[in-house]
């Protein structure tokens, strides 16, 4: 297992390099110009100097390795410096945003908590709702509960977040006036009342994202439970006289969880993608919104870094899912 993990880790390095190259070349080949937003009154020679100041004067084979160096060497050095007070970075050039002229990672660090709160909470909530639904649906196959659960998960698949979110706003903010429609990220939680305010503003974005998760995970959970419920070991367990709760919750559930856990791991990057849209609806100024703003402003370093971070997340989650599968299921050993 360890050799497998190490081999996969090593394999992910060329994968990530290739992905970084694809993103870089897409941005490079694209005809969009970061200077396009500048006023037309700027003389051409000044414009040329500004391009050089942004580091756009060098050809791509100089800039791409430079970006890699900044991403993988310089930025971690700055993290270590700020954590331990050392001076590894020694004033080296960081990745700078074209728009704000500040280091890209500082902005990302500011935006990260909002996104993580909403996305992370929605994922936890979604999974927690999905698991019991999947278990009961499978145990009582074709019952009313199962039919309803399947229908709701079908709706979760089909209703896009930009409609379910807007619908929730229309119902709960506009008509009933129960919940705020805008997520206030400057809100500080320091008392019970402010905690309630935070909770109220989180309900809708979290539920919109959770609906998507629930739809997917409950389907897998149901299918996996159904597979296991007809196995011989279940009959054996019942024949031994074990109580039904032990049979279902211990024997069947633990075996059914193996594929579901990998699905849960693989779904994490997708939920970040969905957050781009959800953040736009509820005006959460998280990573998704940062990406959209950076895209519209031709802020190439910012777009490149955020997209690449998402790619890192996808590759890492794939790896974790594979390794988890091997650890949880002793029948599967890769080496």
């Amino acid at each position, binding site marked *: 297992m360890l050799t497998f993990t190490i081999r996969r880790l090593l394999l992910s390095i060329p*994968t990530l390099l*290739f*992905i970084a190259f*694809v*993103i870089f070349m*897409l*941005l490079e080949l*694209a*005809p*969009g110009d970061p200077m396009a937003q500048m006023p037309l009154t700027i003389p051409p020679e000044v414009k040329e100097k500004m391009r050089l100041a942004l580091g756009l004067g060098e050809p791509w084979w100089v800039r791409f390795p430079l970006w890699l160096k900044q991403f993988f060497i310089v930025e971690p050095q700055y993290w270590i410096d700020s954590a331990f007070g050392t001076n590894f970075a020694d004033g080296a050039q960081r990745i700078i945003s074209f728009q704000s002229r500040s280091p890209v990672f500082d902005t990302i660090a500011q935006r990260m908590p909002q996104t993580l709160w909403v996305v992370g909470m929605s994922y936890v909530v979604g999974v927690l709702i999905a698991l019991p639904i999947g278990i009961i649906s499978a145990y009582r196959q074709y019952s009313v509960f199962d039919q309803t659960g399947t229908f709701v998960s*079908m*709706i979760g*698949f*089909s*209703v*896009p977040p*930009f*409609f379910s979110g*807007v*619908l929730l*706003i*229309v119902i709960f903010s*506009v*008509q009933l006036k129960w919940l705020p429609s805008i997520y206030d990220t400057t809100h500080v939680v320091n008392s019970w009342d402010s905690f309630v305010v935070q909770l109220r503003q989180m309900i809708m974005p979290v539920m919109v994202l959770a609906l998507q998760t629930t739809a997917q995970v409950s389907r897998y959970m149901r299918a996996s439970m159904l597979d296991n419920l007809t196995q011989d070991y279940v009959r054996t367990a019942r024949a031994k006289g074990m109580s039904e709760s032990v049979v279902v919750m211990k024997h069947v559930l633990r075996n059914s969880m193996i594929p579901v856990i990998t699905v849960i791991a693989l779904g994490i*990057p997708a939920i970040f*993608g969905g957050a*781009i*849209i959800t953040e*736009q*609806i509820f005006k959460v100024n998280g990573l998704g919104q940062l*990406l*959209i703003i950076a*895209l*519209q402003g031709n802020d190439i370093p910012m*777009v490149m870094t*955020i*997209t690449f971070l*998402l*790619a890192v997340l*996808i*590759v890492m989650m*794939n790896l974790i899912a594979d390794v988890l599968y091997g650890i949880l299921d002793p029948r599967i050993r890769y080496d």
Partner: protein
Amino acid sequence: MTDTNMTAAPRSQWWDVWDQFKTHKGAVMGLGFLIFITLFCMLGPVVWDVDPGKLNIRNKNLRPIINALWDADAKVAWANPMGTDNLGRDIMANIMQGGRISLAVGWTAMVLALLIGTTIGVLAGYFRRFDGLLMRFTDLVLALPLLPLLLVMMLLFRDPLRAAFGPEQGIFILIVTGIGITSWMQTARIVRGDVMALKEREFVLAARSIGTPARRMITRHLLPNVLSPIMVSATLGLATAIITESALSFLGLGFPSDFPTWGKILFDSVDRMTSFPERVIWPGLAISLTVLSVNYIGDGLRDALDPRIRGL
């Protein structure tokens, strides 16, 4: 199976599929709705020949006709059953026109994704020497963050394509290509797996022993046998393509603003949803119900095309 049919005509396999499909209630309803919404969008403008772009400031902000049921003071008009927007454009005509675009984008992008996916899947499954390379490539594409990349593509390539093909045609090509080349991977994987399994079967060996060339082997023997997984992933692909197009329009990166699609109408209405919630609900319902029915059709097709379930 006892033959109760009085007609002795041989039944094709597709009649069996249809019989099984009919037993899935959701799928039949889904198919019905899909046909309805397609006819609504295709033939609707013939009957309802209101220009979707025509401004009529006098009749702006009309509410849908149903509002008159509970609100006697509501500003309604029979000439605009779904109401009008803030510039007096008829919403029903816009929904029809938008549906044409959304459905066209969905179908074209789905066909493109299927073509790419099937080609790569068959090549990887049939020719051993392409397998490693093509599947590594598929894995790499799967590891790309697709939605951000799609957004990047939309933003960066829209101006040159607009200049080359005109504002609407250019964006259409861009969106369809973008969705197509980011959603073929699942099809490729499924087709590859099925082709690899089929390749070991006796009928393929028999075909090869009489000297069937690879090209005819693929078109005659392999493709018809992988048709069912392709059809199932086609329904999934249609659903995702419609959602992706609407999502792009919703983020403001889709078609130009005077060119309605369902996602675009939804996006334009969000600012005024406090006073006019119905403007959000019409296009949203259209998208959701279409996708829901396509998903149900996919479910029904999966059961109907599975010979182990069929005939039970």
